């Protein structure tokens, strides 16, 4: 598409981008406002950030969210990759339709429905089996469900474009199917694995609705604490926390994106050099 872009569309594009970013930029700017009033600029200050370091409730919630997030991403990465391999590599098996339906449905299901139905399951399980108690564990189980779906879709599209010839060559040279997969296909899908792990981490760290529904007393994740504070109005310490999270995630995504693009270029170059 080399033809000059329609000026109107381009104008709307840049306006749209400006609108997408303006609130975040303003939020970050005001997080350095010394005045507790949102509308009045009272000079530069990092007080609100320092105050965060002493907020036990927020620190505890952040630590809980982080632990849940890392566990969720790891389990979901494993389950989602298995599902993607099954859907791409095994053309026919019993339950294929069921599996592909179950990995696509969570992506479009409203969170509130997923959350309520899962809560009803956990309550019934607890009543009959005496397990699981509502809290960090039920949040983890619920997050793994929708994260697995995201991993499957991401890895699936990557796996579809991966060349199987290398893997077959490795097997012809005597490698077992598992070893052949690990040596040839795994490096190709590695960027997709990394990006889906990161995506799961941010999705899990961000989830409010499902966590609130399936959690029990005592287990409050970071979004749950933020929501209850925000419900009372805009506050300067939440400004600082929000700015911190937005910048950390933004920088991480940029670095991950850059690294992946470089790895991809290197891989393409190597392939050209080996003449395959």
């Amino acid at each position, binding site marked *: *598409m080399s033809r000059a872009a329609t000026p109107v569309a381009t104008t709307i*594009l840049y306006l749209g981008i400006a609108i997408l970013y303006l*609130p975040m930029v303003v939020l970050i700017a005001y997080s350095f406002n010394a005045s507790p009033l949102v509308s009045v600029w009272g000079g530069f200050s990092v007080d609100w950030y320092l105050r965060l370091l002493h907020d036990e409730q927020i620190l505890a919630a952040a630590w809980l969210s982080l632990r849940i997030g890392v566990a969720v991403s790891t389990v979901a990465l494993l389950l989602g990759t298995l599902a993607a391999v099954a859907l791409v590599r095994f053309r026919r098996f019993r339950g294929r339709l069921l599996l592909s339906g179950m990995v696509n449905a969570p992506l479009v299901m409203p969170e509130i429905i997923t959350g309520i139905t899962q809560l009803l*399951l956990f309550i019934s399980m607890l009543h009959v089996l005496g397990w699981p108690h509502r809290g960090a564990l039920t949040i983890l189980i619920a997050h793994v469900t929708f994260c697995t779906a995201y991993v499957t879709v991401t890895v699936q599209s990557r796996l579809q474009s991966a060349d199987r010839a290398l893997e077959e060559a490795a097997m012809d040279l005597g490698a077992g199917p598992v070893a052949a997969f690990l040596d040839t296909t795994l490096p190709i899908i590695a960027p997709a694995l990394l990006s889906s792990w990161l995506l799961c981490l941010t999705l899990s760290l961000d989830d409010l609705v499902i966590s609130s529904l399936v959690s029990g007393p005592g287990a409050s994740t970071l979004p749950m604490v933020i929501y209850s504070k925000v419900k009372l109005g805009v506050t300067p310490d939440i400004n600082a926390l929000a700015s911190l999270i937005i910048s950390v995630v933004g920088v991480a995504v940029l670095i991950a994106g850059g690294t992946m693009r470089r790895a991809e270029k290197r891989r393409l170059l190597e392939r050209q050099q080996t003449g395959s």
Partner: protein
Amino acid sequence: MSGASAVGARIARRASRHARWLIILPPLMYLFVFFLIPFAFALKISLADLALRVPPFTDILTMSHGDHIRLSLNLGNYRYLFTDDLYILSYLYSLRTAFFSTLICLLIGYPMAYAIARAPKSTQNVLLLVIILPFWTSFLLRVYALEGIIQEHGLLNSLLLRFGLIHHPLQIMQTTLAVYLGIVYSYLPFMVLPLFATLEKLDIALLEAAADLGSPPWRVFLEVTLPLSMPGVIAGSMLVFIPAIGEFVIPSLLGGPNNLMIGRVLWDEFFGNRDWPVAAAVSIVFLVFLAGPIAVYQHYSVKQIET
């Protein structure tokens, strides 16, 4: 010897066929138990009665004396949904809000996706990253950030007051307008990305052919570009419409007491009234309503993966 190796190969093949299940079963079982089964439980509980015990609803299957299994279905929860105005009105209200937000997203998102598709390759990657980035940052925090702009003493009102365009701060928070702003702001990237995916694949030669044959630009757009980008329009619209209809955070933080979207009603039913059978019934009816749009989305997204 050859017979033995044939048998060996057959055993190996059968073994690998069984080994496949080591790959298929873990995700299949996990999603079956923790995603699909919950809907069965919701259905079951929606047919139960509210009861003062733990868990707070009755069993629909009970063993009566003489080993007869007694099935008592209570359709009262569903009847209640259709007699109480609150539920019907909030369904309709959610439907309307989601529909118009999707339309606004489409009207803004289409030119954006079009401009990205027409940009040079190097700019394209940067623009895509810029659109995707908000998707990675916290949804809750972006809604909160928007609140900072549109609240009574927020940036928008301060600017308008300073330039003398208004004399009193505009009341945007807790209005329907705030809910629309919130949904469009939050879901715009979901609209742009699938639209870009189809517009990028569009064969430019077709457009040039139409133009060469004398079609004015608007006709080229209406008769060639738009029909060919329909899969993207539908995928993007569903990606906005379906989550918007069940949205809870936006009406709860930005909307007022009148913006009763179904997600909010469900939340209140759960955390306020603790009436779980009714909440389960609302979820089931909601799901039935959503089955159509979800099926449309699945159909088009599967098509897009295959091509």
